[in-house]
């Protein structure tokens, strides 16, 4: 792409010390994005939660037990070279793409034909399949937002970083004669709702944005965080996610990736490794 222009790279920083696991982000997301619900949602492998809060424990016995909550939206991975996200690169019908302008991984429900290859590719389980027709109890479809298209059965969906909010914010800016948005004008629903203020959202490439200041991403090394206590999930796989986490606890940071017993947390990341370019 045109390298001279600095593209935006929207990303998220989640402070796990602040996150209380209350789950507001999950519902904020569902309410914003017309996520359907079923009568039984206790099979978590068949329950659409674009934002899912995981419960981590340090696996120590009573009373040394600790728990930490980890909200997991779509990571909007960039991969090791432009847009080579695990999922985007495998979608056979171009139903998901990587936008260099925003760094957002899209999911186009009407294009997707439900092969689920992207789900097999995503190590974060951020992608969800519509096994069922979405059904709202009579009358409740009134609560659906027109800004997000409801999904039909048989296709994959996932977190979009509330991209429709970006679209709407841009529209508002355009009629006011502006082309660019201010930091607060585009925020995701989960960020806005989080009662603990644990989620920060913004342009990782913009040094004035809070997300940049919090993690100080090193763009020469695939956005590796350089701030203390910052880490990304499964950094070693080279997915280059745009969701960063902060935790003061070593066991939490270590739980963010796989390590051999003798390895130090966060250290031996093989970030310089270049994957082979994709075919064609």
């Amino acid at each position, binding site marked *: *792409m045109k390298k001279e222009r600095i*593209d935006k790279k929207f990303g998220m920083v989640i402070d796990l010390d602040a996150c209380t696991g209350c789950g507001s982000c999950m519902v904020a997301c569902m309410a914003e994005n017309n996520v359907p619900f079923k009568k039984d949602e206790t099979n978590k492998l068949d329950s659409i939660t674009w934002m899912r809060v995981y419960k981590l424990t340090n696996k120590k016995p009573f009373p040394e037990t600790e728990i930490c909550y980890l909200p997991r939206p779509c990571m909007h991975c960039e991969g090791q070279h*432009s*847009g*080579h996200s695990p999922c*985007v690169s495998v*979608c056979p019908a*171009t139903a*998901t*793409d*990587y*936008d*260099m*302008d*925003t760094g*957002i991984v*899209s999911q*186009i*429900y*009407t*294009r997707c034909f439900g092969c689920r290859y992207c789900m097999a590719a995503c190590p974060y389980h951020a992608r969800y399949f519509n096994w069922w027709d979405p059904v709202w109890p009579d009358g409740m479809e009134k609560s659906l937002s027109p*800004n*997000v*298209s*409801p999904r039909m059965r048989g296709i994959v969906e996932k977190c*979009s970083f509330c*991209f*429709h909010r970006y*679209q*709407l914010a*841009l*529209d*508002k*800016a*355009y*009629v*006011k*004669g502006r*082309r660019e948005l201010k930091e607060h004008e585009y925020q995701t629903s989960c960020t806005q709702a989080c009662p603990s203020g644990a989620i920060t959202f913004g342009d990782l490439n913009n040094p004035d944005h809070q997300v940049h200041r919090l993690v100080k991403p090193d763009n020469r090394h695939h956005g590796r965080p350089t701030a203390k206590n910052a880490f990304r999930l499964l950094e070693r796989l080279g997915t280059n996610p745009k969701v960063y986490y902060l935790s003061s606890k070593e066991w939490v940071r270590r739980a963010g990736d796989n390590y051999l017993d003798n390895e130090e947390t966060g250290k031996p990341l093989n970030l310089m490794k270049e994957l082979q370019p994709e075919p064609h």
Partner: protein
Amino acid sequence: MSETDDKVIEEGSEETREQADSGNAGDEEQSKGLPTLFFFIGFIISLVVGWVVFPAILYSSKKQPVDFNHVIHMELVDNGCESCHFFREDGTFSGAPRLAQCVDCHEDIQTESENEKVFVETYVSNGIEVPWYIYAKQPDCVFFSHAAHVKLANMDCVTCHGHIGESTSLREYEENVLTGYSRDIWGAKLWNMLTLKKEPWERMKMDDCAECHLEKTGRKTSIQTQKDGCLVCHK
């Protein structure tokens, strides 16, 4: 590549068949022309069915609930199209006017127009929104930003909507019975299917949007498509 191979083979087999036919021709002199005739009968009938009958079945014609005269209204308003089709403060576009807007002027019948009478009596008096059929209606998966086109790119309404503002009457709305799409989206003319169109408003499928975007902006921000990103127009 094997698709072309397929074709070669099919054609080859046709030839073989013809050879075989001619080989047997001596035996059945009288029947020689018949298969060819039948072939053409079948061919013509199905062509007619495909190009004439099929579209007639596929599209249902609907009359607009009120026949609106754009010309008369354009003469009365100061701000052109935006007088009624305006931008809201939040940047969204109002689209077809709501009853509340119309009522500003049409509280009572103003003229002798039969259409106005229908409008006032059926809709204004009962407070029912007019169920307009929107020719340019895009499906739910599309996010179309009027602001980006009109405010940012300074495009005229006519560029995409054609000369509807100069019309004195609303044409019939044609709806695809299978998809519910307005016929204007897929292309009003049959040859639009063959990617031919003269004016932008003759067809508004995704590829038309993408093509124009590429032409006008040169943006190729989507790694996968080498065009504008999917989420620029999808929601």
